[in-house]
């Protein structure tokens, strides 16, 4: 047909518009998840019950958005059959979407632990705990920044931080055991604290996954399990 090239151009324009929309939804999702994570962590650190409850109430919006993003991504795949960088972006969006939703779930769990902890005796937390919290927040923040900037370097730096988080997580078990041994009244708060730490560690893992997906999107290299 004579009008093949212009038609193709129109389709490319539609594809670009849909991809932009997808990126926007994904980053909005990222914003919501980051906010939820920060709220849960703040609630945990400040013993703020009201804030802890807010995390759970925001989760429905995140779940809805996950479904929306998945639908839109599949729609683009079916309609435009994109290739190369566009395809990688959509695959990444699908994976990141999934990881983000799970981060939000862990944030809700942390919120629940925070609510329980706020009602119990204050627990002497090791200094490493503050570091863990800061690192997890920075990892979530930076993996999303890497996604925005399409920066493989930033993404790699997120992956690097995961080892330290794992170390602190293991150390927390030892510390909490010592606390529980010292005074049985700390058993309940310590168990909750361990649970919260575990969720924090999982969030760090998922942030690492997101970062790996970003590296894949930017460089087309699959980083998982081999660095």
């Amino acid at each position: 047909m004579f009008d093949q090239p212009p038609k193709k151009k129109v389709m490319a324009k539609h594809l670009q518009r849909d991809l932009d929309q997808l990126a926007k939804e994904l980053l909005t999702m990222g914003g919501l998840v980051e906010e939820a994570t920060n709220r849960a962590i703040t609630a945990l650190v400040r013993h703020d019950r009201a804030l802890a409850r807010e995390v759970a109430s925001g989760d429905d919006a995140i779940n809805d958005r996950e479904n929306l993003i998945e639908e839109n991504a599949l729609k683009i795949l079916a309609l435009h059959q994109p290739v190369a960088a566009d395809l990688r972006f959509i695959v990444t969006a699908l994976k990141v979407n999934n990881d983000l939703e799970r981060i939000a779930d862990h944030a809700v769990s942390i919120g629940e632990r925070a609510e329980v902890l706020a009602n119990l005796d204050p627990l002497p937390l090791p200094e490493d705990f503050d570091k863990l919290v800061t690192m997890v927040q920075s990892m979530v923040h930076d993996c999303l920044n890497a996604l925005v900037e399409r920066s493989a370097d930033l993404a790699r730096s997120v992956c690097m931080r995961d080892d330290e988080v794992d170390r602190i997580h293991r150390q927390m078990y030892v510390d909490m055991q010592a606390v529980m041994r010292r005074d049985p009244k700390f058993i309940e708060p310590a168990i909750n604290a361990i649970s919260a730490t575990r969720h924090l560690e999982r969030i760090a893992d998922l942030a690492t996954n997101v970062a790996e997906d970003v590296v894949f999107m930017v460089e087309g290299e699959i980083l998982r399990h081999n660095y």
Partner: protein
Amino acid sequence: MSRILRSRLLWELYTGYAVVILLTAFMIGRFVVGDFERGFVERTQESLHSDAILLRDIALPYIDATDPSFQDRIRALGSRTDTRYTVVAADGRVLADSRENPAAMDNHRDRPEIMSAATNGFGVSTRFSRTLGSTSMYVAIPVIKDGREAGFVRTSMTLDILEARRAATRRSVALGLILPVLAALVLGFLIARGFSRPMLTMTDGARAVASGDYSHRVRIGRRDEIGDLADALNAMTERLKSQIETITADRNVTLAILSSMVEGVVAVDREDYVVHVNSAAEVILGIDAKTAKGRRIWEVTRVVEVGEALNDAMKEKRVRVSETRIPKGSSDQVIQLIGAPLKNAGDELVGAVLVLHDVSNLRSLEAVRQDFVANISHELKTPLAAIRGLVETLVDDRDMDPDTRLRFTTKIRDQSMRLSNIVSDLLTLSRLESDPSRIQFEAIDLREAVAESYRAQAHVAEDKHVAIKAAVANDPVMIDGDGEALRELVDNLVSNAIKYTPEGGHVDVRLGVEGSNAVLTVDDTGIGIAPEDQGRVFERFYRVDKARSRQLGGTGLGLSIVKHVALAHGGIVSLKSAPGRGSSFRVQIPLRRGPGPNGS
């Protein structure tokens, strides 16, 4: 100069001109040379013709006879001139020739000039003669004898001389033309350059202006239309410059207003691309205006509410107000977002603008006020309810035994004392708060206030088995202040310290001078204050543990009074505390300026 040689206009103007000049010169040359040649040939032909007529008369007697002397005669005739003479019989036989041997010559009947002479009575021909090896002109006329054609005479002359003369003519024509042609060419070039150079200058000027150099002026020393064009260009630049300056000034004012605003301002276009971010917005959203500009808002910040507010403002085309919290340090910032659609002069939607207003202080003030009203009602109501209950019992039970009655009335007295304490504390506070100028400033030795307070509180500490120590400077610590208020300050700090220190602990009161400030510190080994409460203990009625405070007889206003007294004296209060380890309050008040301790 090399640029001007590349000018297309120059060559367009000049090529045509040069072609006309050269063509004219060439044509003139051709006509002159051609004219000369034609004249020369004509003259040669005429001279040959007249020679032929003379020859005919000479040849007439011999034409029929074969006289060998005729040949000699012709040869002698020919040797005296450049002209060659030939006499041909009617049948074509050569009878005599001034250059050749007639016997050796061909039959000349077929020669063009002979044939032409036979038919027309005159024949002329110019051709290359192989016998002579040059181009010659031949003229032949018939010899008429007794009314019949008896033969022909032919005269011929070589045209070699013509070639030489033609070359000479060409040379002189060329020499004559070359100067005017060169002059015309140079003049033409100069004229063409005179047009194209101002064009180049003006193009350069226009380019410079287009690239932002509004001080550039085109200078062309011409008084014609081109000069007018340059003047118009300069006028345009001048006007452009002043308009740009006006626009820039307006823009700078607008930018200055925007960047000095306390509220953050973010503007995006219809595609969500960031158009403007002011400095307040940079701080609130934690972004950089330089990197943010030209990117999409949802890439720049992940504060979801920002993108939504802008989108909704564009979609609904009306002002939209919402609120969000942004974590900042240890506390959240409460940000009010006011989104409004941006429209151009044609009422078309071109984007949206968002105003970010930090309402954290407002919100916390609101919370404080609400707490205060709730607290004051509660604080006043509790003793009142107790008094009312006790009084009602007393009224109803006439036969109450005196011991119970005494216990009741004592309780009523205590509760009314408490009410009175609260009210007097509130009055003190409102006095300090509403009009600090009403405080009676006089020279005060802070040591006296400390000593008085120490005396009053020592026995309380003793009863509670708390060790109290006071270390006071040796010299008077003079400040300008209100004695009563300052005593209240010290009292509140010391009694608080004793109240919250368990048995066996100790309280240290120290008064000293640091630089130009009097510094009072009250340290205790009490229960301490948690970090999250440390900022709020100076609020009215704020209690870390409500039940304990009331049980200890506090009004919840003590620290608030301390803070306000310190503020009214131009001082500050700070607090360091660790839960379980104790607290340390530090009050710093500027020393009295002037002569010093002569007031004591």
